[in-house]
């Protein structure tokens, strides 16, 4: 499966990174990691990219890593559709102090707009 993983540096996106890389190793997915500039995340894009490359190297998974500039949600959907990806994988949201699931703005946009399948990692 041709998978586009979006990572912006939030905790849930890093969890999605771990799981998508693990799954790619087991299932042989053709994985592309898109490093996003998430305005809701304090992490610097360079640090996020380094974390992505480290995770891939540690798992010995070969994946393309690229940066998507501009509005993260719409860029992900655009790239997935133009380049024939089967699936977009994203962090599935943070939980509030009392345990409510709170979807990030990127995931909200992607879920509402993507014509390919979307996996939100919990």
């Amino acid at each position: 499966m041709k998978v586009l993983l979006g990572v912006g540096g939030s905790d849930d996106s890093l969890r999605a990174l771990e799981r998508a890389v693990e799954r790619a190793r087991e299932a042989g997915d053709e994985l592309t990691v898109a490093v996003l500039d998430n305005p809701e995340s304090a992490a610097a894009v360079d640090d996020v990219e380094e974390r992505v490359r480290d995770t891939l190297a540690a798992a010995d998974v070969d994946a393309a890593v690229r940066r998507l500039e501009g509005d993260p949600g719409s860029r992900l959907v655009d790239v997935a559709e133009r380049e024939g990806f089967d699936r977009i994988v994203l962090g599935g949201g943070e939980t509030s102090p009392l345990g409510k699931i709170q979807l990030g703005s990127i995931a909200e946009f992607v879920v509402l707009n993507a014509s390919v399948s979307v996996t939100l990692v919990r």
Partner: protein
Amino acid sequence: MTRDYPDTVAGPYEPPPRTFTDRADRELTVRVYGEGPGDDLEALVEMYEGYDPEDRAQGIPPAGEERIRSWLDTITDDDCYNVVAWHDDWPAGHATLVPDRGGAYELAIFVDSDYQNAGIGTQLIEGLLGHGHDIGIERVWLTVERWNEPAISLYHKVGFERTGDGSFELEMTARLREE
């Protein structure tokens, strides 16, 4: 995360214990968690095990005893404030305030399906806000699914104002004390 809070203080609301008759003519009492007729925790576990899945919102209450216990552990910790509406020894509803990392508290209320639309939510939330005020809490917020009109109007009635809009949920805040 920064949120706007109303200038006007909500309430004042009478803190628990609050005894009242609901619209189905049942007598209930809102009490602070731990002051119920039996073991509050075990009673709430039982109530949430039978909770209608359709009444779940944003993933809570969770399903299954193990997840329910773990969630209740978190929200009944020493820095959290809870009240329960008792009908004899059955918890008809539960409301909670859980601290965030910015000195404010997140609020949620739950009413068992047999006890909905009877005015119990209003008593629970007023009791919890009265309790929160007495403890010294200044700022309270919540999120609610945007299609849940009955809940939104209840929150508005007791002093919450809309502040943020996501696609699926909206945020409301209330002030319990002057800054």
